[in-house]
Structures are given as structure tokens and as C-alpha cells.
């Protein structure tokens, strides 16, 4: 098959099983959200896919060819990792220059323009950048490499709301101009839900969801209205959680929308973050 195929990956660190028989596919030209709680195995999975770490068992293929220690296949992949691997004393401009040496498709004009949008100083050394600007350097580089598969591990770490918004807009713009596969691993589920097409949820080293976002969101709905009416309506339903604002109550409900809904209640789409919490933390739903 085409795309990235992850087959039965297992990886443990001492007695901790980080990944357990994980199998998942990343198809061409799609934006994926890789979601999971802290320590769920997201970064381990990405590190194995990008050859930075070796699995105990299983394999990763790209267009049917093994990725492990394969220079030719790896040239189609770029990973923006949470840890910055550029040399501490390297200047921003030199990071772009050297990335272009390894990735001939690197778009220097785009990198310079994008860096300007983020007000990233090209003369600064990597170790003098703040956490936010460190993330900006990594994401501008990742957005400019122009390879078919780009992995973003916590891309907006330390970025303010304006820059996070700018990143999401640029990602969509870039994807619209020339589609590629972007795999975004993040904790900011609400923000990324408007960008991603497909969700891969990982929990305790297992893939628990691998579906288009629409399909996941159709597995639940939110119902809003006067508190008494909402309580009455959801009495026999599987409620994930509630929000209260003044006299208005919102309930997040699992399942299909019933055919008849009282006229004083409003039905809206499910919230991905609520679904995520429900799936990864069932026991802690508060009423």
C-alpha cells in the first residue's frame, strides 16, 4: 500500500511498555492528529517512524519499503521534534541553509517569509531563542522542507495564541497549495480539531481510535438549554460531562442524536476534546 504503514510495533523502556503491538496507517495527503495523554506513547511512535529510535519488534514501511536505516526512504520524511536537535550555537539562517543542503526541495524564500511573519530573527543563535521562538524555528523549518510526510511533535509549545493561530492558518494554506501528509501530535485538541481530517488516538501504548474526525464527532453530540430541561433530556443517556453558564447547561452526550429533541434545547456537534477525555479517562467524568 502507499503511505506510511506501521505494523505491530512494540517498544518498552525497562518495565514500562511504551507501545504494544501498534498498527496504524498514514495515508498520502491527509492531515492527521495524533492525540494521547502524557506518556501515552506518541513521541515514541513518531521517533520509531522517523528512525530515531528502534522498536523491539514490528516494522514501519513507506510505500511498501522499510524505513529503518533507509536513507532513500527517509529523505521523504521530516520530523519537527519536541527536542531541538539543531546545534546550540547555530544561527537561524544557518539552520535553514543546512536543512536546504539535506532537503533539496527546501523553499528558502518561503522559510524567510514565514520567519518574518513570526518575527524570527535570522541572526540569532539557536540557544538564545526563547521556548516559543525555538518552536517557531523548528516549525518554520518543517513547513519549508516540502517533503511528502511531515511530523509535528508539539508544534505550538510555548507559542502565544496569535502565533498558534498563524501556524494553523499557514499549515492549511500550505496544504491547500500542495497537499502533503502532516501528522500533528499535540495536547491542544480544541485548537487542532479544526485543522485535522483524521484522528489517531493512542492510550497506554495502544491505538484506541483511528478514524476520520467527522466519524468520531458523529458518535456524540452536545445539548444546551435550561438546566432542568437538559437534565430531563439526558436522564437515560450516556453523558460524558456537563458545563454550566448562568442558567444554561450543556451536556456532552455519547450516541446518535435522537429524532425528537425538545424545542427549548439546542443540539450541536460534539467537542473533540470531550470525546478524547471520555475515551482516555472514563472514570473521571464529573457531573
Amino acid at each position: 500500500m502507499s503511505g506510511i504503514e506501521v505494523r505491530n510495533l512494540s517498544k518498552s523502556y525497562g518495565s514500562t511498555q511504551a507501545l504494544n503491538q501498534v498498527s496504524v496507517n498514514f495515508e498520502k495527503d491527509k492531515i492527521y492528529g495524533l492525540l494521547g495523554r502524557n506518556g501515552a506513547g506518541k513521541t515514541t511512535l513518531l521517533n520509531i517512524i522517523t528512525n530515531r529510535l528502534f522498536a523491539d519488534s514490528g516494522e514501519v514501511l513507506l510505500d511498501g519499503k522499510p524505513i529503518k536505516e533507509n536513507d532513500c526512504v527517509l529523505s521523504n520524511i521530516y520530523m519537527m521534534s519536541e527536542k531541538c536537535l539543531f546545534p546550540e550555537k547555530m544561527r537561524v539562517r544557518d539552520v535553514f541553509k543546512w536543512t536546504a543542503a539535506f532537503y533539496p526541495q527546501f523553499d528558502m524564500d518561503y522559510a524567510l517569509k514565514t520567519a518574518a511573519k513570526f518575527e524570527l530573527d535570522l541572526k540569532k543563535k539557536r540557544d538564545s531563542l526563547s521556548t516559543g521562538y525555538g518552536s517557531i524555528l523548528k516549525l518554520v523549518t518543517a513547513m519549508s522542507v516540502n517533503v511528502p510526510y511531515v511530523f509535528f511533535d508539539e508544534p505550538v509549545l510555548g507559542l502565544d495564541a496569535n502565533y498558534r493561530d498563524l501556524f494553523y492558518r499557514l499549515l492549511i494554506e500550505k496544504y491547500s497549495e500542495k497537499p502533503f501528509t502532516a501528522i500533528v501530535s499535540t495536547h491542544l485538541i480544541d485548537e487542532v480539531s479544526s485543522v485535522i481530517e483524521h484522528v489517531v488516538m493512542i492510550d497506554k501504548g495502544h491505538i484506541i481510535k483511528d478514524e476520520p474526525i467527522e466519524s468520531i464527532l458523529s458518535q456524540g453530540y452536545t445539548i444546551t438549554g435550561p438546566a432542568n430541561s437538559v437534565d430531563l433530556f439526558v436522564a437515560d443517556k450516556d453523558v460524558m460531562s456537563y458545563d454550566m453558564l448562568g442558567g444554561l447547561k450543556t451536556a456532552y452526550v455519547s450516541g446518535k442524536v435522537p429524532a425528537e429533541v425538545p424545542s427549548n434545547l439546542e443540539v450541536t456537534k460534539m467537542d473533540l476534546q470531550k470525546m478524547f477525555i471520555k475515551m482516555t479517562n472514563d472514570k473521571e467524568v464529573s457531573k
Partner: protein
Amino acid sequence: MNLKSSYKYVMYDNKKALLGFSLIIIAITVLLFVASVSWSNESSTMQMGGMEIASVIFIFVAGLTSFKDNFHMLMQNSVTRKGTFTATMLGFVTTAGFLSAISIIVLLIAKLMSSIQSNIISTSFFETVYPAHVNGMNNVLILLESFLLYFVMMLAVVGIGYLIGVIFYRLNKGGKVALAVGIPVFFSVILPVVDVLIFDGRITVGLIRFMDIVFGISAQNPYVAIVSLILVFLFSGLLSWITMRKASVKA
């Protein structure tokens, strides 16, 4: 394989330090000459030599510190461990060649000074270790053999430095401390004490004899040393590869 870019990057990383070091060594040699011409008198003599040893120390440190940064940068750019290792080794060969050439240039400058100023005596490391071998030998051949010996000596030293760097990277904190403390303590305390108390100095004698044989000193044959040093480089390279082929990027 992205070998060309990887090699260029490895050399870029070395370039500034290499040029700085070379300029300093040449400047020191010239300054020593100027000082000896300005302040010396007929009765005093000045011995010059051993600059090659500075290059050997320099390249050892370069080998020791080169693994982590290169590995991270090349991994960031999807270069395999195989590619990283190959580029690094090619970089070491280039660096060793460059530094050996610098050592020869420094040697030539010192010889030139020696011929201008009679109270300056210039003796290279090669001439000091193999005096009988160089006796009556053509100067060009001495330079060529010196170059060859320095080149393989630097390869061996950088190979050992790199191996230590790779082992350090792969060890956990406890292992790093154990290695950093253990090696100096073993060689400077345990080995001499055990040698004196139990073996009556036979270990030291054996080590000296071993070094004499592998460097062809008594035999006055530098080619024995050249072969031995090539073997050290190949062996340390092999061990480095075995150690790094499963290395992962540390979080």
C-alpha cells in the same frame, strides 16, 4: 545516501576550530623565531619541536566531542546512522590529513629558522623517535614518512576519542560517572599499585616492551608504527560503529 551533505556538515563543524588552531600553531612558531632572533645571543641555543603533539591533542578532543552534535543534526535531517558514521570517518580522514600537512608546514618553518639562525635547533617528533632510521636519509623522504606517521597517528587518536564520545553518549548518568572516574583511577592508581605490590613492576616493563614493538622503536622501523596505528584506527572505528548502530536520539 545524503553523504555529500553529511560530509560537508561534519567538515563545517570542524572548520572554524581547525583553522583557528592551525593559525595559532603557525603564529606561535613564527613568534618563537622572531623572539629568538631579537633576544638570543651566541652562547644560548633554543630547541623547537613537538608541535605535532599539540595537533594530536587537538584532534583527540575533536573526536571526543564530535559525536553528539553531529548525530543530532544529521538525525534531524533524516540521515541514517550508517550515513552519519561514514561522513564522520571521511571527515576524520580529511581533518587528520589537514593537520598532518600543517604539522609538516610548521616543521618546515622551524627547519628554515634553524638554517637562518644557527642557535635554533629544530627536531621533529619523527626524528626524535627514529633517529637511526632518518640518519643520512633524503629530506623529502623524511617529510613524506613524517607526514604518513602523523596522519595515521592522528587517525588512531581521533578514532579512540570518537569511540569514547560514542560510549559516553550511550551510557546512562551512572555509567558516565563510572567511566569518567574509573579510567583515570585505574590507570593512575590501581594499575601502578597492583603492578608494584603484586607484579613487582612487570606490568610496566611489559607495557613498555609492547609499545616498543608496536611502534617499531628498537627496530627503528616507522612502518611498524604506521601499520599498528592503522589497526588501532580500524579497530576503534569498528567498535564505534557497533556502539552507535543502535543509538537513539536522547530526549
